[in-house]
């Protein structure tokens, strides 16, 4: 009884949250609404890929393909049946989402099968190839618009549903990991031989991960199709898969919290950079030098200093301050040089910043920001505790 009360409460809370997002978004410009929708879809994509890559350890690089399959399925059934079905938009959208998920998960099954034989890099290459094959096949089908694309009618702006899907995806993964069922996915990631010696059906576990992960990506695709009112193969190129993988790796492979936050962060970071002003090239060079100093300093501290957490943080801050000061002072000076005085368009730097952030993070924290951790109040307490024996003591 208490359980069901709590459960109903959390479900109502999720709906309320989504309704709140919808209300907030309604007052924004079309541009901002689109960002809110895409951010939600990327959260779903990253968290669902994390189930395959991070939690089950099957390095898949073709997630955009499932996204695309969901999107085209939704577009196709809308074209064929929407006019005749006469369903309320919400109901249609939910049906379309389920269909997109189902078709994408069939594809997930097909891609999951090689994962039974291939490991690591080889699986990455096969899934990457699969993504491209799907895109090229679609591009050559005139019946669904070919390279030109397919318009999807009607357009729905159900921002609440986008975020509801994201919350559902997070909840499913989180729940799974709280039960013994979830541990078998982690066990497969850690050691397949030992897992099967303990009676875990490795084949079934991997295929389940692919089925679930691709179903969520397919559902996200269905939402994208109806939000944009248009789908084309260009929306699902390799970079989309790369960005999703990046979100998972950066967040910390296996961490749902990490994947969620990295998805939101990596999505908004480049968008924010559109407004950067122009500045001389010298500043850029100085910033680069500052970053190098920061990376070297941080790594030095991480390797050599094992004292109290407070003292360590102070050292990190000191290095950061030095790096910032050097960059700020050096910038105007080197910009006096004729070759370094030329102006750079800030907005064009988006992708560079993206890449540099990645490199720096991988140098400083290869296990990803959250590593294997999940957000929980207990975890927060442990992190904030001032003593710092790095080894687990009990």
């Amino acid at each position, binding site marked *: 009884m208490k*359980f069901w009360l709590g459960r109903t409460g959390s479900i109502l809370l999720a709906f309320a949250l989504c309704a709140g997002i919808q209300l907030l978004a309604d007052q924004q410009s079309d541009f901002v609404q689109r960002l809110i929708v895409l951010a939600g879809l990327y959260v779903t994509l990253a968290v669902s890929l994390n189930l395959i890559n991070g939690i089950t350890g099957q390095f898949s690089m073709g997630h955009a393909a499932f996204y695309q399959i969901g999107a085209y399925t939704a577009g196709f059934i809308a074209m064929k049946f929407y006019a005749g079905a006469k369903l309320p938009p919400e109901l249609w959208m939910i049906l379309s989402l389920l269909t997109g998920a189902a078709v994408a998960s069939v594809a997930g099954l097909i891609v999951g099968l090689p994962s039974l034989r291939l490991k690591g890099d080889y699986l990455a290459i096969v899934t990457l190839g699969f993504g491209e094959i799907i895109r090229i096949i679609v591009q050559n089908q005139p019946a669904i618009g070919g390279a030109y694309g397919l318009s999807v009618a009607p357009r729905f702006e159900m921002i609440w549903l986008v975020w509801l899907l994201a919350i559902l995806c997070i909840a*499913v993964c989180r*729940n*799974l990991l*709280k*039960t*013994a*069922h*979830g*541990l*078998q996915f*982690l*066990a497969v990631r*850690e*050691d397949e*031989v*030992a*897992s*099967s*010696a*303990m*009676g*875990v*059906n*490795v084949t079934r576990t991997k295929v*389940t991960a692919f089925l679930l992960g691709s179903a969520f990506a397919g559902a996200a695709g269905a939402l994208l199709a109806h939000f944009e009112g248009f789908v084309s193969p260009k929306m699902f190129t390799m970079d989309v898969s790369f960005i999703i993988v990046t979100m998972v790796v950066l967040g910390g492979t*296996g961490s749902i919290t990490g994947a969620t936050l990295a998805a939101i962060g990596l999505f908004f970071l480049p968008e924010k950079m559109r407004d950067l002003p122009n500045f001389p090239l010298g500043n850029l060079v100085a910033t680069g030098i500052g970053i190098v100093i920061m990376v070297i300093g941080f790594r030095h501290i991480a390797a050599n200093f094992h004292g109290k957490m407070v003292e360590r943080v102070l050292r990190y801050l000191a290095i950061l301050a030095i790096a910032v000061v050097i960059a700020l002072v050096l910038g105007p000076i080197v910009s006096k040089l004729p070759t370094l005085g030329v102006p750079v368009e800030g907005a064009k730097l988006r992708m560079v910043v993206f890449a540099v952030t990645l490199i720096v993070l991988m140098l400083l924290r290869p296990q990803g920001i959250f590593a*294997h951790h999940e957000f929980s109040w207990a975890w927060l307490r442990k992190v904030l505790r001032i003593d710092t024996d790095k*080894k*687990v*003591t*009990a």
Partner: protein
Amino acid sequence: MSVCLKLTEATIKFGGLVAVNKVSFELKQGDLFGLIGPNGAGKTTCFNIITGVYKPTSGEIEFNGKLIGGTPSNKIANLGIARTFQNIRLFKSLTVIENVVVGGFLRHKTGLFGAMAYLPAQIRETEKLRAEAMELLKIVDLADMASARSADLSYGMQRRLEIARALATQPKLLLLDEPAAGMNPQEKEELNVMVRRIRDQFQLTVLLIEHDMRFVMSLCERILVLDAGTEIASGPPDAIRNDPKVIAAYLGQPA
């Protein structure tokens, strides 16, 4: 006592190498049986064909009256054979107790969809598996390390954790691959007592590979000696200790 495990001329070849060559032996229920031999003799490979990691090239493996040669590993575990690994294979980033819960998972009865919804049945089952895991951790003396990451344990502790994880599958036959390797004399002594105790408590049959002669001789009731994939001797510890062929195999001299 009924026969638990029976190998009949079990053989496996890797290319030209005959790693296990027509090995036959029989374990009765409750036996504490030792498998010894110099490095590369084929002992671990024997475990691998019993547990379905490899399919034997020829010969028969019978467990509780059922032919199991070539059955997949996870099915073998479900039939009641559990093992530990010579080169420790824990789920490193999982905690100590989670490692043991994975071992117990093959007895789960609730469905995956319920787990995704985190329903009461799944919560209860997980709690039950954790409680059972905790009991096993007490037996191998790791209860106070339950929430440590398994990779952070000492070598000896990791070996004991592997035993607890294997016990969680509730096996009838337990295969231990060099369980005392890397342990100090005191840890070995404790392990010796522990293996006997768990054999009696869980009514297990134990097949054990070990390099430390004193350890095997004091623990096992019968021993089989392999050299280059072939059986060279078998019998009670006293007979093995004085067998010239065994002495020659260990000292590297022709018999």
